[in-house]
Structures are given as structure tokens and as C-alpha cells.
């Protein structure tokens, strides 16, 4: 840089968290760190001391942080506070996480933001339940850099033997969960021994102070050398403001992208080329890297949407509906098999159920129980999850950012997890074939997105199912007519017609299992052609059993399917049905309901269009 008097705002910043069992002195340590590094505002300590005097209680450094009135009354930290302090080396955001089990979700919230952690243990009480649980959660949350501070050494007469015993015990526990602490520091947070300054109290100790150990944490290297992963956050078109760009927005979580790169969006498998990198008030860029929130435009107009994961063609993410994961549960209600939850991973959101509880681990003892069938609050478990639709992800050991998720129960995030492995579902082989088909497909100059833009509706499949005699064929024909009357390209593709035409020689043996499989493949491929030409295909065939719905959905991907099941009792409907109808009485009313569903899912435009 030149010698011009410009301030370069390039100080390093690091988020660290202080965790440990309740009352082991976390807030006191943070208060002390702030006070000893002159990070408190003028008068703040005096103000808190004055309040203590007025209330007739002894001043504690913890009060500098436990800002909420309830916290000061009860003498505990309820929620993680963020404090700011700086050393010569860099700026810190220090997160003081609560140690009370009741506030574990606040501890998780605090720790998930951190790059490194200080685990605190009371020398007098030794290793406690939450010392272990917090250590375990740190490793699940991906916080790899850890130091351990053994606090309240003044209460054990600064005894080295006590310190050594705690170090041996806790080191052995941490090694079981794959955590290697960088050092153990004996301290008295209250008196400031070995927090910021070495004192004469423990001459037997020659290691770093807490502050020195914290400064020795290393900043995580940039993730730009990993595979490209950019979850699509949204696609923007601000046409009303006179802006014609169609911008795919998201954050590059790992890797790098450059103008001209060939990219693929998973799970839809659509490919395109990056035409430009868009931004506001910055010079034109030809590349973007991990950590940047960016926008790109694509050379070929394809239908991309939130939840798609962008990568390079030669380094694809995994796709499945089944994953093996380690989770921790924070919800008041237990996580139970059979119940529907929402899984959020990157920008994807999908319905999910537990397929199997493999084992439940007591995170404070590391005892695992393979007989439990549900996951209770504060449990850590290994489970197999099944999502309603295929999702794109990575194993957490390969790409951390796209290998972790949260589970939403009702309105609240109730748990978090990391993906250990892909479980092959029934569609795995087919999905991989379809992916290859999509990449190799010979494309014309007119894309499906072009066709959809002209026709004003999306292409896709409406799949009817239900026993013979429920009237689904009639309903399907009326739906086709309704769509046609509204100017929407639609085609009734009965399985019989595919049989008669494409599979004529196999009609006689249609019942044989291997032939059946082939028929379903043929049906799916024919439907795929119609859809690729922009039509909404309506299917009523009885040839396709309920089990084959996923096969069809896989074959027509990236197009979408809406399933309608007709049966007298709702509980007989297959799990993934979008709409369940009782035996048909009023055909037009049922067509109305299907039309409403198609509008809701974005297949067809709403009748009362808004003015944008």
C-alpha cells in the first residue's frame, strides 16, 4: 500500500465462547478479562459497584455481564452475552454461555457462533456433568480449538496435585470424543490470577495465561480451496424498478466461482454457465470466494430456486432422502419416530421423519443406549432420517457447512445435527442415472424455461392414485379440460396408452415383475418428454402402484409432481400425498381443489393476479 494516510480496516476478528458447568465462574472470567484489558466503558464498573452497595451485596465481576435484572437477582447467566474486547493481536467477540442445564439451548446458540472455546472447570468441584456435556457439544458444533481453565484455584490453596488430577481426568474424557485441548491453565478468575497476568500464587505453573492462550488460537484458514458450495438463497428480478437482471443470490460457503464456470444445481440437476457476478458499489469482479454473499447471472435461462445447491459439475454433492446423522435435541417435547418435523439445511427446508433411532447417548457419561425409541430433551443420538423430497448435502467430514442441519418442531428450532453418512434409498441408482441423463441431454436453442415463460405456467406432473372404481379417471379428464379451457398446456397420459404404443410387444406379460419395472421406466421417460416440452401431464394409471410414486418423481426430476389420492378414509393415503379426496361426488368441486393446489405450488398462475 502507498504511504497515504488511509486507515486500513483489516484487523482480525475472532469469536470465542466460554462454557462449563453452572457456577464454575464463566461470567466472572469474562468480566475479569474485560476489566483487565480495559475494555469496559468508563464508569461501568463503578455503576455496577454502586448498585451492589445499594442492594447490600458483594460486588462480583460476573455482574458486569449478567445485565438482565433477573440474572443479577438470581446470580446466574440466563442467556449468552456478547462482549467485545481487543488485544494487540486482534478483536474478539466473547460469548459468555450459560452453564445451567435449563439454558442448554442458549449455550448451543452461543457456542455455534464461536471459532474457539474456553472450557471452565471449578477446581473445588472438579469435572461435573456439564463439563462433559459441553465438551461433547463443542465437538458436535464444530468448535475444534479448545483450552481448559481450571478456576477457583484459591479455594484449593493453589494446589498443583488437584490441578493435575483434574487435567488427567478431563483430558481422558475429551480424547474419547476426539477433542485435544491446547492447554490447561490454573486460574482464579475472581482475583485475576493467570487471567491476563501471571501472579506469584502458582509458581509451579509455567504455561500461558488465559489471555495468552486465547491469542494463540489460530484463525481458521479460508475455505476457498474446498469444493464449491453455494446454497441458492433466492432469485431476484426487480423488473418493476426497471432492472432486467435475473440474479441468483447466495453465499459462497466453500470454494470459489469464476465467470465462465459450468455449474450445476442439485437436486434439480440443471446446468448453466456463470455469465456475471453482480454487486452494488464495488468494482466489477470476475471471481467470488468462500464467505462472500454474492449474486450471479446465468448464460442459459434455467429454472433455479431457493434450496438448490450450486456446485461445479465435477464435484457434486450427495443427494438422497435418507441420511444417517448425529443429533442433539433441545425441544421440550421428545423427538419421536412417526412424527413429522421440518429439516432446514443451508437454504433448503423439507419435511422429515425419523426412520430409526440407532442409539441414544448420555452426553454427560458417554453411555449409549440402543434400546431407546425416542430422543429426549438434552439427549445426543444417532438416528436415520427420511426426508419427503430428495435433498442435496455433504457428509459433515467432507464439507462442514453443507453437512449440518436443524430440526424444527412446530414453530421452533428443537435440535441440530451433523450428517455422518448417506443411506442409499430405493431411488439411489435411478437418481444417479437421471443425473447423467440430465447432463448429457441434447439441448435445443429453446429451453424449458423459455417455454414456461411464454406459456405463463410451469410444466409438471399431476399423478392420480387410488383403487379402481373411485372415479379418478373421470376427475383427471375434467382436470385436463379445465386446464385446457384456461389456456394451459396439458395432456392426459394414461398408462394404457404408453403400453399400447411404446411397449406393444410386452402387453401380454405386463404382470411380470421385471416387465413392470420396465413399464414404469418407460412411462416416466415418456412423461418426462412431455414435461420437457412444457406440458402439465395428468396421469391416472393403475399400472403405477403407490410404491412407484418415488420412481416417477425421480424420473421426471427436476420437474415437480403433485400427487392426488382418492380414498374413503384419509389414513389409507400414502405418506407423501399432496391432496387426499374422498370418493368423488361433485367432480367440478374436486377439480377446484386441485386447481387451488396447482396455484399454491406455482404450477399455474393465480386467477386474480396481483399487479406486479
Amino acid at each position, binding site marked *: 500500500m502507498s504511504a497515504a494516510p488511509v486507515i486500513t480496516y*483489516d484487523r482480525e476478528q475472532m469469536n470465542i465462547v466460554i462454557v462449563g458447568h453452572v457456577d464454575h465462574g464463566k461470567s466472572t472470567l469474562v468480566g475479569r478479562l474485560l476489566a483487565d484489558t480495559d475494555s469496559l466503558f468508563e464508569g461501568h464498573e463503578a455503576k455496577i459497584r454502586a448498585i451492589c452497595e445499594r442492594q447490600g451485596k458483594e460486588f462480583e465481576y460476573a455482574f458486569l455481564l449478567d445485565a438482565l435484572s433477573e440474572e443479577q437477582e438470581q446470580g446466574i447467566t440466563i442467556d449468552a452475552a456478547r462482549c467485545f474486547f481487543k488485544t494487540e493481536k486482534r478483536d474478539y467477540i466473547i460469548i459468555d454461555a450459560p452453564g445451567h442445564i435449563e439454558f442448554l439451548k442458549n449455550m448451543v*446458540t452461543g457456542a*455455534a457462533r464461536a471459532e474457539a472455546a474456553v472450557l471452565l472447570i471449578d477446581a473445588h468441584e472438579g469435572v461435573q456433568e456439564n463439563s462433559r456435556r459441553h465438551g461433547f457439544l463443542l465437538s458436535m458444533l464444530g468448535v475444534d480449538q479448545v483450552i481448559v481453565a481450571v478456576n477457583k484455584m484459591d479455594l484449593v490453596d493453589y494446589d498443583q496435585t488437584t490441578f493435575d488430577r483434574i487435567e488427567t481426568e478431563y483430558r481422558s474424557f475429551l480424547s474419547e470424543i476426539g477433542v485435544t485441548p491446547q492447554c490447561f491453565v490454573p486460574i482464579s478468575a475472581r482475583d485475576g490470577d493467570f487471567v491476563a497476568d501471571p501472579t506469584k500464587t502458582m509458581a509451579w505453573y509455567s504455561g500461558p495465561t488465559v489471555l495468552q492462550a486465547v491469542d494463540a488460537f489460530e484463525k481458521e484458514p479460508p475455505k476457498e480451496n474446498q469444493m464449491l458450495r453455494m446454497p441458492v438463497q433466492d432469485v431476484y428480478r426487480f423488473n418493476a424498478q426497471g432492472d432486467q437482471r435475473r440474479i441468483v443470490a447466495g453465499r459462497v460457503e466453500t470454494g470459489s466461482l469464476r465467470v465462465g464456470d459450468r455449474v450445476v444445481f442439485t437436486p434439480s440437476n440443471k446446468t448453466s454457465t456463470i455469465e456475471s457476478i453482480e454487486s452494488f458499489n464495488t468494482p466489477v469482479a470476475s471471481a467470488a470466494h468462500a464467505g462472500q454473499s454474492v449474486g450471479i447471472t446465468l448464460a442459459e435461462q434455467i429454472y433455479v430456486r431457493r434450496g438448490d445447491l450450486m456446485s461445479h459439475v465435477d464435484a457434486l454433492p450427495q443427494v438422497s432422502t435418507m441420511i444417517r446423522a448425529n443429533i442433539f435435541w433441545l425441544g421440550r417435547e421428545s423427538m419421536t419416530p412417526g412424527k413429522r418435523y421440518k429439516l432446514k439445511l443451508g437454504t433448503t427446508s423439507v419435511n422429515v421423519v425419523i426412520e430409526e433411532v440407532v442409539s441414544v447417548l448420555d452426553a454427560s457419561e458417554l453411555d449409549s443406549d440402543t434400546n431407546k425409541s425416542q430422543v429426549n430433551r438434552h439427549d445426543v443420538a444417532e438416528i436415520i432420517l427420511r426426508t419427503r423430497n430428495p435433498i442435496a448435502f455433504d457428509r459433515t467430514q467432507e464439507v462442514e457447512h453443507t453437512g449440518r442441519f436443524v430440526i424444527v418442531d412446530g414453530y421452533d428450532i428443537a435440535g441440530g445435527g451433523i450428517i455422518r453418512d448417506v443411506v442409499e434409498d430405493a431411488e439411489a441408482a435411478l437418481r444417479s442415472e437421471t443425473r447423467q441423463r440430465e447432463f448429457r441431454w441434447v439441448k435445443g436453442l429453446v429451453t424449458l424455461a423459455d417455454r414456461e415463460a411464454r406459456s405463463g405456467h410451469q410444466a409438471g406432473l399431476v399423478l392420480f392414485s387410488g383403487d379402481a372404481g373411485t372415479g379418478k379417471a373421470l376427475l383427471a379428464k375434467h382436470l385436463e379440460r379445465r386446464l385446457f379451457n384456461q389456456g394451459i398446456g396439458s395432456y392426459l397420459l394414461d398408462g394404457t396408452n404408453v403400453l399400447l404404443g411404446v411397449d406393444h410387444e410386452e402387453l401380454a406379460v405386463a404382470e411380470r415383475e421385471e416387465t413392470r419395472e420396465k413399464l414404469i421406466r418407460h412411462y416416466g421417460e415418456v412423461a418426462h418428454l412431455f414435461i420437457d416440452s412444457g406440458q402439465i401431464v395428468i396421469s391416472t394409471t393403475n399400472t403405477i402402484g403407490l410404491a412407484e410414486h418415488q420412481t416417477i418423481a425421480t424420473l421426471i426430476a427436476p420437474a415437480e409432481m403433485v400427487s392426488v389420492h382418492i380414498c374413503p378414509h384419509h389414513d389409507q393415503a400414502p405418506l407423501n400425498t399432496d391432496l387426499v379426496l374422498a370418493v368423488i361426488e361433485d367432480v367440478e368441486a374436486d377439480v377446484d381443489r386441485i386447481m387451488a393446489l396447482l396455484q399454491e405450488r406455482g404450477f399455474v398462475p393465480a386467477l386474480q393476479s396481483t399487479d406486479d
Partner: protein
Amino acid sequence: MSENTERPASPTQLDELESQSIYILREAYHHFKNLCMLWSIGKDSTVMLWLARKAFFGHVPFPLVHIDTSFKIPAMIEYRDQLARDWNLNMVVGQNTQALADGMNHTKGRLTCCAALKTEALKHTLSGEWARKRMNDQGVYVPDWNQEPYTGVIVGARADEEGSRSKERYFSPRDENNDWDIADQPPELWNQFKTDFAPGTHVRVHPLLDWTEVNIWEYIDRENIPIIDLYFDKGEGTRYRSLGCGPCTGCVQSKATTPAEIVRELMTITTAERAGRAQDQEDPHAMEKLRRDGYM
């Protein structure tokens, strides 16, 4: 910053803060149908407005809501309307007209005044119960046709401002009564936020939570954001450090005339940012109480 560098140096603190704020703004825009951003005209929410233009490539696709206590420093209103025109903003203003008609002002008690003219006005403006005014194409304020409650409200609170703000989430729910249940906040991890919420409740979104006062000024300097000039000394050796209502906001001694000078000054300063805000000094938990009731 130099142009056309193929590989910039590893991201700076400001780059990281900017990227995270943009991510949060885009999440908010995706999840909330009735979304607005509170713009107090001060430096923080003006930086936030700038970040929105970054997030949405020059556009601001939601309304900006300003609560006008009528005691704001007049230059603030001029600046607000000028920027609204220049940047093509969807500007909405709310006010507690009844309390003002009844003669409310800070002499009735600072906290009482804040509660009426800010907290109450804000609550009823957000819920749509009280009439809102919207700036039209000619730059004139007319009654707003939209009376829908806002379900997502973007706020420029920073964790380093004072104790209760340091405990906020990026996405922080408020119940039907606008209450903030501090003891039972939702978990928030790996950039997954609370975006599902019961009818009648709303969510406050805090894109600036990790920014410090120094970061704000560094960014204003780096981006050349046209910040209101009340923050700068105009030759009298004083400037505002925090902006509020005229009667309750004091100046600080300072000769800083540019953002860079303010950054240098803040590097050595030891008094709290809100020291010039009289209402904070009324009660040790004044801010927490105000904020539990809906103050920003």
C-alpha cells in the same frame, strides 16, 4: 481497494460483517411477507439501509418505517426525505398523534415520554392499528393504503450498545403483546433462524448485532455512505455521537469532521456511546425495561 484483483487478500473483519448482514437481510426478505426496516436516521440504521442496497443490488424491496416523535432534530427529517427521494425508498412514517395532541413531552418524565412517543407509536404503527403515512411519487406524505401488520421488522440494534442488546438473537420473536421473553429465546445456530411463528406474533431481525460502533464508522468511511452531518463537528468543537430527540440528546466534545477522524477518536475513547442519551440514566435497568416493552 484496488480493482480487478483476482484473489483479494483474505476477507477483512468488515467483509465478514457485511457478508453476514447481507445473508440475514436476504433471509428476512425471503421469509416475511410483510417486512419493514426501521430507520431512525442515525448512523446504524443508515448503514443497515446501505447493506440492504448491497443485498438487493441497488434496490430496497421493503418499506422503511420511521417513528417521528416530533421532537427529532429538524435536520434529521430533511435528510430522511432527501435520501428517500434520491434512493427511491418506500418511506413510511408513524406517530403518536393523540399523545402529542395531549401535550406529551420529556418534562412529563423522560421514560414516560419515550414510552408514549416511541414504544407506543412503534407498536401501533407496526400492528397497523394507527394510520401510517407514506411518501408518494411527488415526495409528499399521504395516508398509507396498507394497514397490514408487519410480521418481520428489521432493526439496527448492536450487541455492544448496552447489556440487554448483547443478549439478542439475529431473529428474535415478539409475542402478541410485543413482549420479549428473554429467558426463553429460541436456539439459533449455523445461520438457521427462527422463521416459523404463531399468528399475531412477529419477529425482529438484527443484521447489525455483531458490529461495534467502530466497525460502523469504518464501514461508513470505506463505503462513502452519505451519513447525516450532525455526527460531525462544524467548527464549534462538538458533535452528536448518538442521535435521538432534541431535548434528550447531548453533544460530545469532539473536533472530528470525517468518518475516519471519528474512527481514530473512538479508538481511544472510554465513555459509553449512549452516555449522551438522558433516558438511559433514569434507572439501571431502564433500557431492559424499555426494550421488553418493545423499544428498539
